[in-house]
């Protein structure tokens, strides 16, 4: 599929390994070349995704490059022609023996109580290459036993063998250099700086790469022994990056998630949100039974009663029903629901996005890039809207690597500075409402004058890069929930017409949102991006006319035109940006049917709640933001009477007297392949095999004209002289359901704050930490000021779903941009 043939055909570097003549790849490290040829050289500090430091000396091998044999660290040695390598020589073995004896002299032999015991590289290497016993009779090094270096990670400095993996990860990969070596010689220790915890979004990776039990994570410590673990490779559904993971369980309970080194996606890294998401799956508050509101409160009922009630609530004209959600489910479940709703009931008021995404057809018509294409050395990445560090943290690590290590250039067109700003070659920070016109000036190349507060110089810098660097990849997401998506659509339109060869990477963030769009859980489309009038075999009907998106559904509900809301794992009451609209809609409808795993604010308002399994409990596939298909596997059984999402769709159909025509996941897959052109070539065994996962084929939408009805180039005029335009986006840790239900992560979010540009802070006479009064209509809150770099004057940044203030109260979906008053509090 990929054109890798030419690079593999290049001549290799001949070398001799233990008497065998072999070939290394050009520039390949000896440790890798040996591994590829079946010779494992022991190592501690070497990690294939980080720069070598040659620190632990475990990988010393005897090498002769013509000047006689000598010991060389194979992790830092590039294979050169005719190199003679002996990993079995006496001097190699003596070095391995010696290094291991020295590594062990200060390492406590507390393996029986160490979490790493049983999966410990130090144990393994000591067993395979070590001297067997120690001659060290002195007192070992002592430190205070595990100290918390962050809310999630503990450090036991006695066990640490100072391999520099965690510190290198923090500095080089995550860009959070908050742990480092202090002191020297035998007193060298890893530690945090005084008063500064290792509060990195990626801290859990250090636990995974620690070659001993020095770093342990709070959720996993002392919960299992490695030999008791059963595991299954899967895909993280936490966000749309689709990081590859291993689910590990003990006694039918998920106890750990590890990152898998997938070349195409996550390179073994995970954000802490992905890594510790299983805690929500294990949460006590999970729904076990179907529930119905028969007497003013939700009570547990039997499935057939709940299904009957759900069918009754849905037994209405298609236009009277609105369906919100579906991004949390597997592709198979999404297909089952799409078929049930669109193909059986003819409903098209379905939207998997909650007013915080981008027009589905606009996204689906973009020529797609993969992460690898975006990260290509020499290319230019245009970041539109989002801060990947907060929204798609694992993607952030790939982008950071591309820009910092591989020489890709970055142009940022975001409402504020992002986690990548310090590496951006051009930083364009847009005021709400100006994204369209700014992209227009870049697209047309007319960059000679300043546009909407962005200087001609900034525009020219960006324009030069866009003209000189290839490939161009636009990464696009919704950067501001208080601003209509029309501005983003306008930006896409301008960038597409200005740079026809540019490719796009969708940064819609919700779990399997790309699967949902592909399966037609969006108004106006059938699965595979096909128009509503397409005939699909086995579908009884298709919707007669284009339905409504979430905003439309809520507005119709307020008007009384929709009387049943079906929530597919969504919680619009807290998650939809316009708080008033969603509240009024819930007050107006007669029925709410919720398919969920938790009693959220919205499902508490439901008449019927159908309990569902979560990823890890159900099998299926996941379509990530590249449209790459990878498996979601079940490892444990769901609690109580929970059922998989697709089963619930099939059950509803059956109770209503219909038949979806499948009763297993593989039957759904067969049907998807048979009926949906974009999946016609998918080999499901390839999806199931451990690998990068195939990309699905392009739908007819890809490359078609952008649906530009929403494109908005108007720059709204500020409404009042005290009004600041709202920039509302998400933090990685917020009050979102999955984070909040995960015990160790639920406290990691910050309080809401009012982010101000330094000019506005100066004008108001406030500094970091001062309180200001934020007023939106009837709502007022006192928020701490945070001066935000790169925020244009006139904007105020308030993150969504943090305690202290709900910016949803200040957002009206009917305004293109929204404003709040920010005033100094009278003391």
């Amino acid at each position, binding site marked *: 599929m990929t054109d890798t043939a030419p690079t593999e055909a290049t001549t290799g570097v001949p070398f001799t390994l233990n008497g065998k003549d072999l070939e290394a790849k050009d520039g390949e490290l000896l440790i890798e070349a040996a591994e590829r040829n079946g010779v494992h050289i022991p190592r501690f500090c070497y990690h294939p995704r980080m720069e070598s*430091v040659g620190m632990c000396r475990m990988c010393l091998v005897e090498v002769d490059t013509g000047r006689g044999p000598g010991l060389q660290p194979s992790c830092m040695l590039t294979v050169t022609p005719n190199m003679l390598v002996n990993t079995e020589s006496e001097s190699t073995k003596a070095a391995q023996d010696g290094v291991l004896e020295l590594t062990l002299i200060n390492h406590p032999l507390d393996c029986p109580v160490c979490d790493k015991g049983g999966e410990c590289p130090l144990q393994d290497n000591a067993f395979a290459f070590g001297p067997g016993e120690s001659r060290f009779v002195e007192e070992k090094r002592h430190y205070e036993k595990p100290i918390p270096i962050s809310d999630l990670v503990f450090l036991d400095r006695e066990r640490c063998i100072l391999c520099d993996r965690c510190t290198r990860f923090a500095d080089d990969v995550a860009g959070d250099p908050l742990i480092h070596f202090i002191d*020297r010689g035998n007193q060298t220790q890893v530690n945090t700086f005084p008063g500064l915890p290792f509060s990195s979004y990626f801290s859990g990776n250090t636990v995974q790469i620690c070659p001993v039990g020095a770093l342990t994570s709070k959720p996993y410590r002392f919960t299992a022994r490695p030999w008791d673990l059963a595991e299954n490779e899967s895909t993280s559904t936490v966000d749309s990056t689709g990081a590859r993971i291993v689910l590990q369980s003990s006694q039918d309970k998920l106890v750990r998630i590890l990152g898998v080194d997938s070349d195409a996606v996550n390179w073994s890294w995970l954000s802490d949100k992905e890594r510790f998401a299983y805690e929500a799956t294990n949460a006590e508050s999970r729904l076990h039974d179907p529930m119905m509101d028969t007497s003013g409160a939700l009570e547990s009922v039997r499935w057939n009663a709940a299904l009957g009630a759900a069918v009754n609530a849905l037994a209405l004209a298609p236009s009277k029903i609105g369906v919100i959600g579906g991004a949390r489910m597997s592709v198979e479940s999404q297909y089952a629901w799409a078929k049930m709703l669109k193909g059986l009931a003819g409903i098209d008021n379905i939207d998997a996005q909650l007013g915080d995404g981008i027009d589905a057809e606009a996204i689906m018509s973009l020529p797609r890039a993969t992460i690898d294409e975006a990260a290509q050395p020499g290319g230019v990445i245009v970041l539109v809207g989002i801060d990947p560090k907060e929204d798609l943290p694992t993607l952030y690590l790939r982008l950071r690597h591309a820009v910092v290590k591989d020489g890709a250039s970055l142009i940022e067109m975001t409402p504020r500075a992002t986690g990548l700003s310090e590496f951006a070659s051009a930083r364009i920070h847009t005021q709400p409402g100006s994204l369209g016109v700014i992209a227009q000036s870049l697209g047309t190349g007319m960059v000679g004058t300043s546009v909407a507060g962005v200087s001609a110089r900034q525009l020219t810098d960006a324009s030069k890069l866009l003209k000189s660097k290839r490939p161009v990849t636009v990464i696009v997401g919704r950067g501001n929930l208080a601003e209509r998506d029309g501005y983003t659509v306008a930006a896409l339109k301008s960038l597409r017409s200005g740079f026809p060869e540019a490719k796009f990477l969708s940064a819609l963030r919700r779990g399997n949102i790309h699967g949902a769009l592909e399966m037609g859980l969006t108004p106006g489309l059938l699965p595979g991006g096909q128009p509503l009038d397409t005939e699909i075999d086995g579908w009884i009907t298709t919707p007669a006319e284009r339905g409504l998106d979430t905003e439309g559904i809520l507005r119709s509900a307020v008007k009384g035109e929709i009387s049943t809301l079906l929530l597919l794992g969504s919680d619009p009451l807290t998650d939809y940006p316009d708080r008033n609209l969603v509240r009024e809609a819930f007050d107006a409808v007669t029925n709410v049917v919720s398919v969920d795993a938790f009693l959220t604010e919205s499902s508490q308002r439901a008449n019927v709640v159908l309990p569902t399994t979560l990823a890890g409990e159900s099998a299926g596939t996941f379509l990530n933001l590249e449209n790459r298909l990878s498996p979601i596997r079940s490892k444990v059984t769901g609690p109580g009477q929970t059922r998989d999402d697709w089963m619930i769709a099939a059950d509803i159909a059956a109770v209503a007297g219909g038949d979806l025509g499948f009763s297993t996941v593989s039957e759904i897959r067969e049907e998807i392949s048979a009926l949906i052109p974009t999946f016609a070539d998918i080999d499901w065994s390839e999806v199931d095999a451990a690998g990068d996962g195939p990309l699905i084929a392009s739908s007819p939408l890809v490359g078609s004209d952008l649906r530009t009805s929403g494109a908005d180039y108007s720059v709204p005029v500020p409404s009042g002289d005290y009004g600041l335009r709202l920039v509302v986006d998400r933090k990685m840790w917020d009050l979102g359901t999955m984070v909040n239900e995960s015990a160790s992560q639920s406290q990691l979010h910050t309080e809401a704050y009012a982010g101000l540009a330094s000019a506005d802070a100066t004008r108001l006479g406030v500094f970091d930490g001062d309180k200001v009064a934020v007023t939106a209509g009837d709502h007022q809150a006192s928020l701490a000021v945070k001066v935000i770099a790169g925020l244009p004057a006139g904007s105020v940044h308030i993150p969504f779903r943090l305690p202290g203030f709900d910016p949803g109260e200040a957002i009206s979906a009917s305004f293109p941009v929204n404003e709040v008053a920010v005033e100094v509090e009278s003391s």
Partner: protein
Amino acid sequence: MPTNAYVPHAQGYVDNEGPKVVSSRFIHDDSHTLERALATDAYEGMKIALGMAPHEVAALVKDAVLLGRGGAGFPAGIKWGFMPPVWPRYLVVNGDESEPGTYKDRLLMENDPHQLIAGCVITCYALGLNQCFLYVRGEMALAQERIAVALNEAYEAGLVGKNINGTDVSIDVVLHWGAGAYIVGEETALIESLEGNRGMPRLKPPFFPAAKGLYMKPTIVNNVETLANLGWLLQNGPESYKTYGSETSPGTRMLAISGHVNRPGVYEVEQGKVTFRDLFYGDNYCQGIRDGNELKAFIPGGGSAPWFFPDQLDLPLEARPVGAAGSMLGSGAIVVMDDTTDAVKATLRLVRFYARESCGKCTPCREGTAWEEKVLQRILDGHGRPQDIDLLLEIGNNISPGPYPVASFDSQSLEAIPFPPKQTTICPLGPSSVAPITSAIRRFRHEFEEKIEAAVAARNAGDQDD
């Protein structure tokens, strides 16, 4: 003007008979001032260089076979030639002198900073670069102060900075103070430290400074004394330079002699012409061992060098024969021990230095040096075990595999093992800790055994009491 005696102004310097290339101004109380420097032509060599083409300056230095004075003794002119034609490129001056027993660079920096500054400018000009970093060891407060003052004076006088001496040559010299670590004397660790990182060595290859040095750009790292020679060399020419010293090691060198001699101090000595015997016993030099005692052992090239013994007294002070005899001349530090010295204590003293100064990067050095220290301390504390002697040698073998360089022991017909040692570490710090252990155990094993036997006897006696 006192001659052939201690110079009170330059404490530790002995103004003996002989040619003076780098220490000629030390006899003046105000040798560190610009006034004295100008009066004694400290910048004349630089002015001559600026009148030549850069490649001519480089060729002249190469012709003079100016050997690096930092320890390895590699010809500076040839080292300069390793620089690929890539700009920017940097000169870094290694003023992090901290080898046990060495203090000659400190005297050069404290007493003649202008000579060094002129040397920096000459080198930058010859190499076509305009940025020099002068890295001075953290503990050398006076040197830092004198260089800072001298740099200010030189900038003021137009001798450094923009359009030097009215030419179109512009060269900046930046003074950087270290934070106090022996390892930063190793050039790649020095570069790391200069970049603001922890001073930990980089692996060579691939990080040879001449190719990938400071900020991954080509970088020449030269020793203070090497550059101090340049002014005189330019002024007097390579031919005059080569009239001093031996054919293979021309010029003079600053030697710091400490320990049990009658007149320890820093001497400027012609290279290759003097033997250790001349140096220790000669009237022009150290004037004998203290109190008329016998010489027991001496370290010819700083704490990292294997020890020599009376058998080696007649070796000339020249790199090659010293290396073949199992040690090194290193940075010009000679430590003399008379027969009152306890070999085990002396070993511990040196090993403890390396254990404390290990940067902690490579496992064998970090763990091995500390282990060696603990074992030696235990032996001295009366808790030795018979197997400890071999254990010490085997720990050493883990840090520095294979036969370790050591001097011959003629009466026992033990051959010398030539320098340098092999290493399982990135830099030679760890292997340096093995030098005193191997040397002392080979020559004075009985001293270790006596202490251990006494300890065992005491333990056995204690057992019987119970």
